[in-house]
């Protein structure tokens, strides 16, 4: 327990015990302060000489402001922007390739690909005839709104169509960074374990729809689909879940229908303007 305010903290646990960082090289242990109005006297510290500036600004304010610029651009060009998120290897690129092949005669399309290294995924997308730009984040674990803004300057925007942004394969960090998308499309594959929504709740909380992928492999696995969906709904009670196989094509109709209804909503909003 934290000794400053008596809160439980939420430090990392190792074997059920709070992680200690006593001998850290940089700085000391986390100094917790009691929330205002709760043992405020105890939280008092020497402020006699210094000035206190009340900032009250979100840490992600800069990213959120850039995301708002991206979102306004998408709205002005009537573009449905989707942020595809999942752990590495769940099948995002394979599903995307299949989706692009199905939609490319119907709508203008473009793809922004995010990976730490290589141009491989953008190459796979370009093989479908759809324009793609690769972002390599280097050491970075997620895309941010500025990367997307700059990537958009290098491609023809799919006016009246869909921009797919395939995030870095990571079920943790991309949850926090708004890119200006209409929705996050989270993907989970049935080879991953049905309790992943509980293990990585932030991503499932942030998602607008979940694709449960690789369902063609279900006969060979112990994966419990209803239990997995129940776990997702513990995190995000109203979440829509679509069962897909990017390999066999199962569930693609339902996924494409979801996409087209998104396009129709955009078109309706355009007419209402």
């Amino acid at each position, binding site marked *: 327990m934290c000794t400053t305010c008596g809160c439980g903290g*939420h430090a990392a646990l190792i074997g059920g015990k709070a992680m200690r960082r006593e001998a850290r090289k940089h*700085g000391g242990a*986390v100094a*917790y302060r009691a*929330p205002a109005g709760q043992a405020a006297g105890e939280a008092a510290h020497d402020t006699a000489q*210094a000035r206190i500036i009340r*900032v009250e600004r979100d840490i992600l304010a800069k990213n959120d402001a850039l995301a708002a610029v991206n979102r306004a651009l998408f709205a002005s060009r009537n573009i449905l922007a989707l942020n595809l998120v999942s752990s590495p290897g769940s099948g995002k690129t394979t599903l995307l390739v299949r989706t692009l092949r199905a939609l490319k005669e119907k709508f203008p399309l473009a793809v922004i690909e995010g990976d730490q290294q290589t141009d491989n995924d953008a190459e796979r997308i370009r093989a479908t005839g759809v324009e793609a730009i690769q972002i390599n984040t280097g050491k970075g674990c997620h895309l941010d709104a500025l990367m997307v803004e700059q990537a958009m300057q290098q491609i023809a925007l799919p006016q009246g169509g869909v921009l797919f942004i395939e995030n870095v394969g990571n079920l*943790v960090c991309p949850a926090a960074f708004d890119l200006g998308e209409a929705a996050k499309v989270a993907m989970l594959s049935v080879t991953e374990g049905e309790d992943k929504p509980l293990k990585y709740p*932030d991503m499932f909380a942030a998602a607008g729809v979940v694709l449960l992928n690789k369902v063609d492999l279900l006969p060979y696995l112990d994966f419990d689909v209803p239990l997995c969906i129940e776990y997702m709904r*513990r995190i995000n009670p109203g979440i829509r879940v679509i069962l897909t196989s990017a390999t066999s094509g199962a569930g693609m109709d339902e996924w494409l229908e979801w996409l087209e209804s998104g396009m129709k909503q955009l078109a309706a909003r355009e007419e209402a303007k």
Partner: protein
Amino acid sequence: MHEMSLVEGVLQVIEDSARANHFSRVKTVCLEIGALSGVEPEAISFCFDLVMKGTLADGARLEIIATEGQGWCHTCGQTVAVRQRHDPCPLCGGYQVQPNGGMEMKVKELEVE
């Protein structure tokens, strides 16, 4: 480890505030981090000194206000306390709980000179 990017976000907020409020040194940075924000205060603390090195907040003390999580239970029709996103409602034991508090991650105040 997006905490590194988040701490860089903290630095941007500090630098913006320094331009607006005309200060050149930061003694204390106070952040408000909610239990459901997906941010680990320990990891923030770990990156903090590193990111602030050589900036106007070099050597600044970091304080964190940890706010508690809360959610709206659709079954009970009221706000309840939750420690993490997949916690059941403490009243009915159900999982129809939509988080509605404790998601903050913001720079609360700065002690400057």
